């Protein structure tokens, strides 16, 4: 009972982070039809920005905000400089570009910050609460994780549903040609979309890093979990990505608790295979795609 509770709470906390990361992937997929595999090292390098500031004696929250801001800028720069020339072109080339970025950012981080493991501080306690005899594996940082992801999701919903900017962004993602004809500055909105997605990715990176170790490859498995979560949700649906993230967090936490942490990535692969075989359109698919 105790173990099940612990596993569930850990799973939900991690699931929120995967959900955030999946959301970042889905935002970019919807607007540019690219799965941005470079999201992982982009988040990683912004975490290093925060870590450098913290090591220089700056307060944690300033470093946190700086990391998010650098994520925003990095996302915009990447879209404008690297991705823009191949948008609407060959699918394979676009993905190869994100992988080139993946390699470059990885190597840069290792050259600049070193490839060793470094510990990243957490602003809140890392021990669980106690309710009578039962200890609850929900740490202060865990609560912060859940709340901050929920806040970001709420803000994104407000942006996309309630503002004119959000409406034009959805229009640009839905049909670029028509949106352009209606006077929407599609290019700028794509840059903004990548920037926002990179910000959400950076948040996920900071949340994974908090109270744990960072090294240049620490986000590599998270991009896999984010992708699997996004596919679970249908790759096209932000709500699906969130649900997919939570489901995947629970499943992986169960595997980690009951079998072994070494098999967690394999479990993610199995989940992906099963989803693709049984419901290739994701858990919530209603209509199947028709091409011909």
């Amino acid at each position, binding site marked *: 009972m105790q173990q099940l509770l612990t596993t569930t709470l850990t799973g939900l906390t991690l699931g929120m982070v995967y959900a955030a990361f999946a959301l970042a992937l889905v935002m970019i*997929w919807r607007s540019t039809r690219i799965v941005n*595999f470079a999201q992982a090292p982009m988040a990683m390098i912004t975490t290093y920005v925060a870590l450098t500031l913290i090591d220089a004696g700056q307060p944690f929250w300033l470093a946190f905000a700086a990391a998010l801001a650098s994520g925003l800028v990095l996302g915009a720069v990447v879209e404008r400089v690297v991705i823009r020339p191949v948008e609407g072109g060959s699918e*394979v080339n676009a*993905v190869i570009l994100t992988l*080139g970025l993946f390699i*470059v950012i990885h190597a840069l981080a290792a050259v600049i910050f070193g490839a060793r493991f470094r510990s990243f501080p957490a602003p809140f306690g890392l021990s669980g609460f106690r309710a009578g005899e039962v200890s609850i594996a929900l740490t202060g940082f865990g609560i912060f994780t859940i709340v901050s992801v929920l806040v970001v999701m709420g803000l994104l919903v407000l942006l996309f549903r309630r503002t004119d900017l959000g409406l034009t962004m959805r229009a640009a993602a839905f049909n670029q040609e028509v949106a352009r004809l209606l006077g929407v500055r599609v290019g700028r909105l794509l840059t903004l979309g990548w920037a926002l997605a990179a910000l959400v990715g950076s948040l996920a990176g900071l949340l994974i890093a908090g109270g744990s170790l960072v090294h240049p490859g620490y986000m590599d498995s998270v991009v896999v979990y984010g992708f699997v979560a996004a596919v679970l949700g249908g790759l096209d649906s932000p709500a699906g990505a969130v649900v997919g993230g939570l489901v995947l967090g629970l499943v992986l936490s169960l595997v980690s608790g009951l079998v072994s942490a070494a098999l967690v990535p394999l479990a993610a692969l199995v989940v*992906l295979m099963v989803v693709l075989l049984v419901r290739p359109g994701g858990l919530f698919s209603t209509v199947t795609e028709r091409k011909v």
Partner: protein
Amino acid sequence: MATTVPVSMRDRLSWRRLPPLARHLLVALVGLALIVVVIETAGSFRQGQISSMAYLAIAAGGLTVLTGQSGQLSLGHGALMAVGAYTTALLLQSRAGAPPLVVVLAIATVVTLVVGVAVGIPAARLHGPYIAGATLSLAVAVPGVALYFSEQLGGEQGLTLRVPEAPVWLLDTMFFITGQELTGRKYVAYVAWFCLVLTYLLLANLGASRVGRRWRAVRDDEVAAAIAGINLGRARVLAFVVSAAAAGLAGAVMALVVRVSAPSGFTLTLSLGLLSAIVLGGLGSLLGALIGAAILTFLPQVVTSIGQDAGLSDLQAAELAPLVYGLTVILVILLAPAGLVGTIRSGLAHRRRPT
């Protein structure tokens, strides 16, 4: 106005008029002869590097067929190589009682092929990013599997293996041809390059056949291909499985060359390195894959020593090579998406064409 080119006697007997199989066989024979010369004249360290280039080139060849001809991307060829390498290591634990090397290589290829089927069927049936994502998960998952089954697979240290002795007839033949003793290292280099030539021969013929034409049709226009009666899913899965088999053979050769299979040899970096190799060389071209593999083998040494001269620590300098690959990948895709081979070829075609 259509220009008619007079067909001279020389043209009729020219290279382009040979059937593909004959052309490929000729290239393969010339290649084999070249390899004997290179391996016999190279020093011991270079022989090791030449063998490394062979296994990278086998895997890159499989990957370039997948990406260039069928338009799919695999980020997990390093992991598929691990499957082949571990199979080989398990089969070659002791010299006594080990099956012949040909059988070992064949088993490793088949085992990887089966894994390729398991991953490829769900993912390759769908178009878009699914095969990339699934193979990326495979690349991240495989090291964990080696750690979990640490009793059978040796955990972090991996499995060491014993390379079987060269058969007597081969020793005699090679002595007859080259007049030199066949050392163990040379034997492995010959095995590696023979596998490479065989793989490229098969891949080149497959690409020139109906199968290859179907792959390219699916890559270029799904709807048109489907209307022409091509089963899209089947064509994609077949391309992935063929490519996985090549990766398995590459892994088996790698195990022979480095004599150990450990998780640290099959990181995501290997998969991404292979991808950059085929992008540099030119997607879809086997010659490009070979050139890319050569760059992948010989560049790190050069770049690392430049980095050390510039005052970087050894660890930092070791990261310069991936930095160079990554930057070149980005630049090639943005500026010359056809890669080295494709750009040179179209340049030549431009010059040849009458204006």
